[in-house]
């Protein structure tokens, strides 16, 4: 379990699409995907601070018209949020492995 979380994060990050100048539509779709994942993480009460920051950075770059940066930050936020969701789900059982008995 310990190994699979960083692995999941790496995988999620490595699935980012190849470079091409991003436009506003790319940003909007990347942002809404990230936002949805982050909301799910928050509802599981497993939100990470870094997800919140990446999402804020995406918004800031998007508002400023820097869509390349905005898309990159949104993808990062989505990957982080997905990793935190993975953590929340796996910990539903995995926490017991750490228990003092």
């Amino acid at each position, binding site marked *: *379990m310990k190994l699979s979380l960083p692995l999941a994060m790496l*995988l999620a990050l490595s699935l980012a699409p190849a470079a091409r100048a991003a436009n506003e539509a790319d940003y909007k779709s990347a942002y809404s995907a990230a936002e949805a994942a982050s909301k799910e993480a928050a509802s599981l*009460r497993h939100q*990470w601070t870094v997800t919140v920051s990446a999402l804020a950075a995406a918004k800031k770059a998007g508002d400023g018209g820097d869509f390349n940066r905005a898309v990159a930050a949104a993808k990062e936020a989505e990957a982080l949020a997905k990793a935190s969701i993975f953590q929340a789900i796996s910990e539903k059982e995995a*926490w*017991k*492995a750490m228990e003092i*008995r």
Partner: protein
Amino acid sequence: MKARSSILLGSLSAALVAFALTSARVVAADKIDPVADAKAFQNFFFQKFPTVKHEDFVNGPYSMNEDMKRQWQEKEEFPPYEFALDAGKEMFATPFKNGKTYADCFPNGGIGIRQNYPYFDEKEGKVVTLELALNRCREANGEAPYSYVKDEMASLTAYMAFTSRGKPMDIKIPDDPRALAAFENGKRYFYTRRGQMNFSCASCHVQSPGERIRAEILAPALGILNAMPIYRSEWSGMGTTSRRFVTCNSQTRAVPLDPQADEYRDVEYFLSYVANGLPISGPGARP
């Protein structure tokens, strides 16, 4: 793409195997047994630190390090929480606008009762911490609640802890399935990994007490609430239990919960119950 998908498959199957292993282990032990849990918890620390006197575990990092303990004992002659204690005592004695005081809200006028908090309120069906009870007292008397992470709350709890020093922690779990569920939920919160660092409370306070993390020495989880609230030089002031939980969550890059969220109330219940028998030592002072 081929390499990538085989990594994906590899990690997926590793996760599945790990999942199968952990779930097989736990099916057998699903009964909630706080007495057995507390015994195992205490034994773990007593065996891990055989030279630490049992009642010393309540002194946080000082129980783990002789040099630090000496510095602390010198400090205790002019304790940095003194001002908070004085403020708390005065606040405690000062009537609300309606003429009542905190003493009217608590058993024994609020003196020498710290060891009984948190308790399970069977009417509400939830855990009530001392900080929560204090704010409820204020609100019931027409006063605005205090921030859970600021000085006023720390001063009040400092005074109440001080009048209870030396009394053994005495947390009850009534025969009520909701109380057992709260205990279990607190236990789960304590052991659940969270944040980008993937740490649980136990990663630091069970697996690594006595070790350094940046400039600090980690306190053992056993008796970890007995010294609350604490003065910390790093905060240049006092910190409540709520403030400490929020800080510990943030350290692992987890978004903290709101102070007095159910999980925090429950984890306080769990940690206090497993410390039953160990003396109240608050307020504490930390480097």
